[in-house]
């Protein structure tokens, strides 16, 4: 079987988000085509959906999870009489009650069996199946943007130090990290443009960096070495302060309040093989903090926002021998925001009996997680179902898309 990752590496697709923006084209701020906002968070490491949204009404759960206490015994919060929320997400309960938090359960990408994080994440972000039509080499958010002609680069923002495949592709996308900074003398700026002119990768990245720095007012017009050095020292000191996920959420919100309509970033730390109680509590605390920061910083824009948090696969239904869980298949997706029809758990529950499981060990996926992502895009941006099935998620049979937005 051809690995998705190697395919992407061979075709050089990982990471290329080539906008047609030559160096000297000034960044324009045309109004975006939509008013709603979409935020996609990639949860890297395989979040244990069964621990986050616990099917404590399923009589098998307590036996499968003895050290990982579930339901009332583990302090989980009842959601609907059958499912309960992990206690580390307590802070999100006001959103649940307001109908602004929901989940899709027993979902997965088409990835099966080898359970590699890295292939799993590539497949999640590419949005294609292994057997999808050949030649697809970009991320699904980027393909969604490609279907709308004339978008400005700042319509979509990839945030963080690491590259995001889900946003990569032919459509212009802005990319920045909250701790990045760039200030240059006008002479240096011109000379840099000259030396980058022969190298499209450098030329494009530098041009975007200069434009973003200007748009963010990082470009203070320093004209002495002392000022630049001071600025560099401040940047480095600032990169040590504060919590990274909060800085990313604040940055995303600051862009989404303006012209940006789509933002994506990652949260790491979900690979809970060992002492899951501790590790998952920490990671869910970050996820909760991220969502609450977005809500607070977006202000009224939160009402028009749909946030999707997705992971590469779920984890084994049985806890392992070290109070953790190993790589599995079916998992859960989180959705939040004022544009979401929340307060419910979507999906068809497959059950946790021995004969219900996938390969005798994993939660059986009963829906494709891409169908929910598609439903959200249809809801907030009005995308046609045929565009979703043919272009954004080639090979997806979305069936009748669930309606998850208001």
């Amino acid at each position: 079987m051809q690995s998705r990752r190697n395919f992407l590496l061979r075709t050089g697709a990982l990471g290329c988000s080539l906008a047609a923006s030559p160096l000297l084209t000034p960044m324009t701020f045309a109004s975006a085509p939509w008013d709603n906002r979409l935020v996609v968070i990639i949860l890297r490491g395989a979040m244990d959906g069964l621990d986050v949204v616990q099917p404590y009404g399923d009589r098998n759960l307590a036996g499968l999870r003895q050290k990982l206490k579930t339901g009332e015994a583990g302090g989980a919060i009842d959601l609907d009489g059958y499912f309960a929320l992990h206690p580390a997400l307590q802070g999100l309960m006001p959103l649940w009650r307001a109908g602004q938090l929901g989940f899709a359960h027993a979902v997965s990408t088409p990835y099966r069996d080898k359970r590699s994080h890295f292939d799993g994440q590539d497949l999640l972000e590419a949005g294609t199946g292994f057997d999808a039509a050949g030649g697809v080499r970009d991320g699904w958010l980027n393909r969604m943007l490609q279907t709308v002609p004339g978008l400005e680069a700042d319509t979509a923002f990839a945030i963080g130090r690491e590259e995001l495949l889900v946003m990569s592709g032919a459509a212009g996308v802005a990319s920045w990290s909250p701790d990045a900074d760039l200030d240059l003398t006008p002479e240096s700026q011109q000379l840099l443009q000259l030396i980058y002119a022969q190298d499209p990768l450098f030329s494009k990245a530098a041009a975007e960096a200069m434009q973003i720095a200007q748009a963010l007012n990082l470009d203070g017009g320093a004209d002495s070495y002392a000022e630049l050095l001071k600025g560099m020292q401040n940047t480095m000191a600032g990169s040590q302060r504060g919590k990274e996920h909060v800085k990313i959420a604040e940055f995303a919100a600051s862009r989404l309040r303006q012209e940006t309509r789509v933002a994506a970033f990652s949260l790491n730390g979900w690979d809970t093989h060992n002492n899951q109680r501790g590790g998952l509590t920490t990671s869910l605390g970050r996820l909760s903090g991220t969502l609450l920061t977005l809500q607070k910083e977006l202000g009224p824009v939160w009402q028009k926002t749909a946030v999707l948090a997705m992971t590469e696969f779920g984890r084994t239904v049985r806890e392992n021998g070290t109070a953790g869980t190993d790589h599995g298949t079916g998992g859960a997706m989180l959705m939040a925001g004022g544009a979401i029809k929340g307060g419910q758990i979507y999906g068809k529950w497959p059950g946790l009996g021995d004969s219900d499981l996938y390969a005798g060990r994993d939660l059986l996926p009963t829906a494709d997680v891409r169908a929910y992502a598609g439903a959200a895009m249809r809801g907030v941006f009005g995308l046609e179902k045929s565009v979703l099935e043919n272009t954004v998620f080639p090979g997806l049979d979305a069936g009748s898309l669930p309606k998850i937005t208001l």
Partner: protein
Amino acid sequence: MSFDPDTAAIRFGMGLGPGLKPPGSVDEMIRVLRARDAAAMQYPIPRFMSLLPDISRLAELQKDRRRTKDKARLKVVMAGIRDLRRSSRSAQAEYLKASVARGVFSADGFRERLTRFWADHFTVKGKNGILKTAVSTYVEEAIRPHLTAPYSQLLAAAVTHPMMLLFLDQVTSAGPGSRMAKRRSGRGLNENLAREVLELHTLGVDGAYTQADVRQLAELFTGMTASHDAGFVFRPGMAEPGAETVLGKSYGGGRPGMDDIRAFLDDVAVHPDTGAHIARKLVRHFVADDPDPALVDHVAARFAQSGGDLTEVYEAMLNHPLAWVTPDRKTKQPFDFVVSSLRALGVPEDRLMRMKPRQVALYLGLPMQVMGQSFENPTGPDGWPEEAEAWITPQGIAGRIQWAMTVPHVARLDLPDPRVFLDVALGARASAALEFAAKGAATKWEGIGLILASPEFQRR
């Protein structure tokens, strides 16, 4: 064969520098690599074993903290914990400084590059306490001494190292039928290390293994654990009794011990899928993100013929014309960018070595992080990406330009003339546009910054 000294220094080493002679031939590169490790003696980094007393002490203090009721005693304990943590953090800054210094001053840049390559291939992270700051000491102990060994030796050193066993949760994994699992309910298997050994360290994700192999290997690995005072420990009471079948071959069955695990590691180290995986990874790291299959196949063939003899594998790569004629399309990762810049600048040794931990962070560690590479701390066990596109992003290049414009003048007060520097740093690689820019820059620091920020300097 088109060996060229500048390419040897830039593509396979840490770059050019004033007064530093680039390698004269492939034979010389290999000879130097096989000789004693002069850079490690000059800029020492302790081995992991030497941290054990501090690791034990911290564990004792933490136990005390939980048990002590006495307030005065608690104060002393807390102060002890703080001191140990603080000293481990400044030690980490010293490790970074030594790693940088080796790259900046060593005549054997290929050794430094191979160290980074294999440290990344066998990525570990410390999750808490002193382990968080100990990655360099693992590299010094498990990676660096085995760069020219058979692959099976390097594999065993890395995979059985306490840092790896801790990082990938092997230390708590017990066989479901082991004495420990019978005694303590809920104790059992953890698949993490077994999966990553097959997927990342040996066969590769496209290799010929299944979930059943992962499970069987996890059982075979049980018993390997670590303790605060001894480091690596094999505990038969945690080992799964009976034989395991991994990749179609049966291991163990008698008294559990390391022999069976080593037998498996010896076999998997020379599996054809392992050779193909390592060859491709090595060539992608050194020659091209999207390498010519002819070169990969050539290196893989030598891996197979030599039973994974790493020196022969490197020779196969270096003696192939494609290693030299492939255009400079790779991008230096941030660590190499910073090191090769300081090397080209001819930074005075005492100025670098006198840097305090705070300065190491401000001018080396944090800037690399802003450029996208927190030193020895990638996101996951798969290490850093290779593709130029993953590094030359708007945020990544902003970090590189900002560093290039500011830190050289901190590292060297008397900056060289940019026109001279251009030749020192790049030899024949400078373009006319860059020459124009170096001449046209209003100040020395801008001229130097432009040269370091140029594609010619950052590509190789």
